[in-house]
């Protein structure tokens, strides 16, 4: 049986539908990732340091505690009192295991010390020894 060949029109057609698919996928990926990273991170001006170390990429077993300029403690976008923080830290230490839990304190450089000390004290009471303070590189850092 002979099938009639369909004649192609002049010039080659580029199918751009998959390209648009991929580009949209990338946009949605970037939008989601940027939203997800902001879930437990407050906009604060971190203190500068020269000896800061790169944290591990995998943020599993990490509790982020933010400290705003006015001294408000924020965990997961919810402001909380030192007592409430103590309860959260104790609960996290129980569920995740205090050996695995790392607490990251993201404090504003102009925040008062007393609430920051309250965070550190809450960690000490929950027997969490892996406490880290978030910093950014000083301009003259090596």
């Amino acid at each position, binding site marked *: 049986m002979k099938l009639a060949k369909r004649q192609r029109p002049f010039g080659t057609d580029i199918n*751009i539908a998959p*390209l*648009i698919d991929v*580009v*949209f996928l*990338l*946009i949605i990926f*970037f*939008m989601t*990732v*940027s939203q997800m990273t902001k879930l437990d991170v407050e906009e604060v001006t*971190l*203190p*500068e*340091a*020269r*000896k*800061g*170390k*790169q*944290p591990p990429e995998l943020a599993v077993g990490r509790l982020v505690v933010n*400290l705003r300029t006015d001294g408000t403690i924020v965990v997961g976008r919810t402001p909380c009192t030192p007592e409430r923080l103590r309860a959260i830290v104790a609960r996290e230490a129980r569920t995740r295991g205090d050996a695995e839990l790392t607490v*990251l*304190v*993201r*404090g*504003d*450089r*102009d*925040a*008062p*010390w*007393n609430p*920051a*000390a*309250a965070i*550190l*004290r809450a*960690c*000490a*009471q929950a027997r969490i*020894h*892996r*406490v*880290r*303070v*978030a*910093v*950014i*590189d000083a301009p003259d850092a090596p």
Partner: protein
Amino acid sequence: MLLTRQSRRSSAPELSIAPMIDVVFLLLIFFMCTTSFRKLEKDVPAHMPEVGRGRQQDFDPVRILVVARDPASPWRCNDQGCPTVDVLVARLRALRSIADVPVVIEGRKNPKFGDMVRALDACYQADFHRVAFSAKGVEP
């Protein structure tokens, strides 16, 4: 005057996707740029022993005081005023050359968190390994 209609439109309406691709690429480049321009966050270890649980030391630790509202010497290292962090680092390096003793950082009159962290960083710069914040003087 009767105008004859131009040739009829083809059956399927054509959608111009060129501007859409322009916008999509613009968005893509915008997101790629904003994600890469964020300053990279790092961290330093911080430790504050519970009151009464600190280990008994055989020798006196280096004591750094961070005093609020004292622009002349915000940091005091073993009761010697340090007007800048570089002076504090130099003092600590001199002490470190003798021994790797523990260092205790204490805040007075509720100083700024940033000044406390700079003192902590100064200790790490001077290569001290046992650095802790003191709970002394902190209002509960």
